[in-house]
């Protein structure tokens, strides 16, 4: 079966005054239909840029993107428009991603209008059914975003993303701005929708407990590169890369009986501008040595589990 999405050696560089910023650097992955790929990492690791580049919200610098087996790296304008119906995005901030001057139903109807081909009545009906699908009561139809709380606003964002019946949705930190009790409602909704419509998600987040819960496979990014990729449970059970280990140990667990040793990292994210060819995590890594100065390649440690660290075996055995 051809995967729904395949990304090969994707790069996205930005030219800045100080040099070339390697936001996404040689990232490859495949994503099967109906599955969820979690992308985790800290601010500035390139996870959002990766999502946006896959959707052509920014143009890739190099690499290839295949959607249902078609090469969509450089789509024509008409092709891109068609593609937009199939690939959608849910944004992080439900406060700034909605037009404050559009009512709830206008906002949800907008994609339908842009696609065209439906009468006003059909669109209204569709909008109502979308509101119902995402759990927005019909009485909010004529409300403006500022009248609603974060959870409801995010439901509008989800309804907009669903409007054109996409196959693939990039979810860019869709629950980070929400309170936990509301966050759980939205996560459940997204899981229900995935089941109902067979959606495929790329779930970008820095919240590791959320990503573990929702993902089939997880990719850990550091400064534009994938440092580790594995099935969700495998990643948490057998963490291999020193950065993933530190990241996982840093999540505070709401359980007082499981006191873990936090691995404290020295320093902070270094600059992704003109990076050196070696391991980008080297400066903060306790295991760094001479050979880490060479470029790191993703190596398959066990079936489906990839790690980009030349010392992972030694670290595993130590």
């Amino acid at each position, binding site marked *: 079966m051809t995967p729904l999405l395949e990304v090969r050696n994707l790069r996205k560089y930005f030219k800045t005054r100080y040099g070339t910023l390697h936001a996404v650097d040689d990232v490859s992955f495949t994503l099967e239909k109906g599955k969820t790929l979690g992308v985790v990492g800290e601010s500035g690791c390139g996870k959002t840029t990766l999502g946006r580049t896959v959707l052509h919200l920014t143009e890739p610098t190099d690499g290839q993107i295949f959607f249902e087996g078609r090469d969509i790296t450089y789509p024509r304008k008409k092709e891109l428009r068609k593609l937009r119906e199939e690939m959608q995005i849910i944004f992080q901030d439900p406060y700034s991603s909605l037009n404050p001057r559009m009512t709830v139903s206008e906002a949800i109807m907008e994609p339908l209008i842009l696609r065209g081909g439906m009468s006003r009545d059909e669109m209204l009906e569709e909008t109502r059914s979308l509101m119902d699908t995402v759990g927005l009561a019909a009485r909010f139809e004529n409300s403006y975003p500022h009248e609603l709380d974060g959870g409801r606003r995010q439901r509008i964002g989800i309804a907009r993303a669903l409007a054109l019946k996409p196959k693939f949705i990039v979810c860019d930190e869709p629950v980070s701005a929400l309170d936990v009790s*509301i966050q759980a409602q939205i996560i459940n909704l997204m899981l229900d929708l995935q089941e109902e419509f067979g959606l495929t998600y790329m779930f970008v987040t820095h919240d590791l407990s959320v990503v573990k819960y929702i993902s089939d496979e997880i990719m850990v990014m550091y400064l534009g590169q994938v440092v580790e990729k594995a099935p969700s449970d495998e990643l948490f059970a057998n963490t291999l890369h020193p950065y993933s280990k530190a990241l996982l140990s840093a999540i*505070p*667990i*709401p*359980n007082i009986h499981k006191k873990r040793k936090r691995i404290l*990292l020295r320093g*902070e*994210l270094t600059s992704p501008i003109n990076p050196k060819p070696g391991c980008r995590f080297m400066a903060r890594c306790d295991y760094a040595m001479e050979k880490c100065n060479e470029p790191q390649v993703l190596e398959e440690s066990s079936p489906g589990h990839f790690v980009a660290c030349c010392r992972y075996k030694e670290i595993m055995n130590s």
Partner: protein
Amino acid sequence: MDEKLLEIRNLAVEYHTDEAVVYAVNNVNLTVKKGETIGLVGETGAGKTTIARSILRILPPPTARIVSGEIFFNGTDLLKLSEKEMQKIRGNKIAMIFQDPMTALNPIETVGFQIAEAIQRHNKITRFEAVKRASEMLEMVGIPMERYSEYPHQFSGGMKQRVVIAMALSCNPELLLADEPTTALDVTIQAQVLDMMESLKRQLGTSVVLITHDLGVVADTCDSVAVVYAGEIVERGTVEHIFDFAAHPYTLGLFGSLPQLDSKEPRLKPIKGMMPDPTNLPPGCRFYERCPEATAECAEGPPPDVEVAPGHTVKCIKARGGAA
């Protein structure tokens, strides 16, 4: 350790706007012991920050009003002090760390200057001594002294939060109010900052009120917990009691909403609905509409504070005589 440093009694705060009165904090009682870290947990709009701001009396005028209550700090009622006396306490005996380190610092002064300024404000020392002390504070939070003369924009988020913490601790406060100090930070940086706060607390013996919505952070750092919902403390107790014997349906709901790292249930168990409108609170239990355990009795009057175990109180009629 059992000595009371801060005691809040029957605190009520309202915000008056043109259209309505927001009942932000209602009848809150809270005690902070010397050397203790207490977590104030709750969702956006629950009133956590308002409680902290009331302690320092920095609620935004003219809308905010402390309607009733007493806040005893080392035995004196802060609400009865003159503004001049209050200034001697603010930043000196009680300091606050704000949520967003990006906006808590003055962009046009160097970080060192800003710390020295706070020190000189509260201590009769020379400029030179203040500068020396400020550099020591920077070193203590892990920022090299050489960066004394840099401006906030030259620091990353985590470093800025360290500067803010250095400033808050520069006068050895007895009480530190930390309002979501790590929410804006990445997890690995959060781990660094929490670790640092922990060791500073141990060195200086400061009591901390930690405002957070992250139960993981609470489990890691707090001695006791107060759960805030719609302006009320619905449950409070030691961290062990709250995590092992949570009794209020809201507290249980919060725990149920969290994805657990070690279990994979098909769906999370969110709390249905939303917090009541603080301008129009229900007469009975504030959690009534969302509560899975609610009965008609709950809607009638405000629920009592029930002590289910020594030091563990629950605002719920169901908890009456309950085991814990």
